[in-house]
């Protein structure tokens, strides 16, 4: 059985594509056959983050319009054995993503025995974002601890609960996960940033992880390498934790108890560190 997972947020620039690339890679690293689809027609970027931009020949829209077969458009990831990327189209209009077309592609991926189909949503609440979440079984709501991002996440949760196929058909609702990204424990300690508890309390969906703000993310995207591959970085470890929790069975409390949050506490630098500097 394949599982369709949408990475969504409402607001742009919060880390959806970074998260899609990291989670899809993380699932593949754990041996699961995974496909990651870029739904941002017109503004494709997942290929750049995954480092396969020069190998794009056909794209999602080509497949939907019958100009290419799905197997021709899927790009095999260079780092993970079990990972394939379906890039978005760069030029054509957004309405090219028809609901029937998207469903057909997802059904084909299911038949190809993909265990996970990760949908990287565009920002906003327009057609592309709705298409990305329509077929979701689970959703990872990516949120920054910042007012506009939290409000937009609330909006997109509402859309998920009304427009997803599961909601339309009255099936069991889409399983929602809250992922907080670009988190700065120091700023939280100083009262400058909403804490992850605050955000969770406001949005009231189960927390799957907290990704710290980090310079490593830019370093990763510069090289076209998903952040989860950056050995030894806190971001890579935090994403690996998210993937592990995602695969874990049990209630949110059990999962978090088994694999507690990391990189969320701030340690005040000691006197010596403050005098002599250092990171």
């Amino acid at each position, binding site marked *: 059985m394949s599982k369709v997972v949408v990475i969504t947020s409402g607001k742009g620039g919060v880390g959806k594509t970074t998260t899609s690339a990291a989670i899809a890679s993380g699932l593949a690293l754990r041996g699961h056959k995974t496909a990651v689809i870029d739904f941002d027609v017109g503004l494709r970027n997942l290929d750049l983050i995954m480092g396969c931009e020069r190998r794009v020949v056909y794209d999602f829209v080509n497949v939907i319009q019958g100009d290419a077969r799905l197997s021709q458009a899927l790009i095999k990831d260079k780092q993970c054995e079990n990972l394939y990327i379906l890039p978005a189209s760069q030029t054509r209009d957004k309405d090219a993503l028809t609901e029937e077309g998207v469903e057909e592609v997802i059904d084909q991926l299911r038949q190809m025995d993909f265990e996970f189909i990760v949908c990287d949503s565009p920002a906003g609440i327009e057609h592309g974002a709705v298409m990305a979440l329509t077929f979701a079984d689970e959703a990872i709501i990516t949120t920054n601890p910042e007012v506009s991002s939290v409000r937009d996440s*609330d909006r997109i949760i*509402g859309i998920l609960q009304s427009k997803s196929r599961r909601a339309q058909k009255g099936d069991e609702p889409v399983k929602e996960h809250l992922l907080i990204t670009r988190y700065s424990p120091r700023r*939280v300690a*100083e*009262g400058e940033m*909403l804490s992850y508890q605050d955000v969770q309390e406001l949005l009231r969906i189960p927390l799957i992880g907290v990704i710290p703000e980090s310079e490593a993310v830019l370093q990763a995207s510069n090289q076209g390498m998903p952040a989860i591959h950056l050995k030894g970085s806190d971001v890579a470890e935090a994403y690996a934790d998210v993937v592990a929790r995602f695969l874990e069975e049990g209630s949110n409390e059990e999962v978090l108890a088994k694999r507690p949050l990391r990189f969320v506490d701030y340690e005040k630098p000691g006197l010596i560190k403050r005098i002599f500097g250092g990171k």
Partner: protein
Amino acid sequence: MSLLSLIFGEKKKTTAAIAKERLGLIITHEGGKSGQPGIDLKALQQELLDVISKYVHISKEDIKVELEKNANLEVLEVSITIPEAQPKTA
């Protein structure tokens, strides 16, 4: 900031606390699980208008009815502006 609070260092609310409070007021309005299905604000407004119109000349725009939701309580706010208080001679 006044001189006194500068000197005595009045305890200021952190900006994060302000953010949380502001979001708390808007979020449940907008989300999927929003609203209080039991209260029909439009009907309430109309009925208030009907009653008050018996005594004062006001229009619909003068009555504002809003429902604000916090984590554990809801505030129904009704504000009625009377243009130039002119009681009806009944």
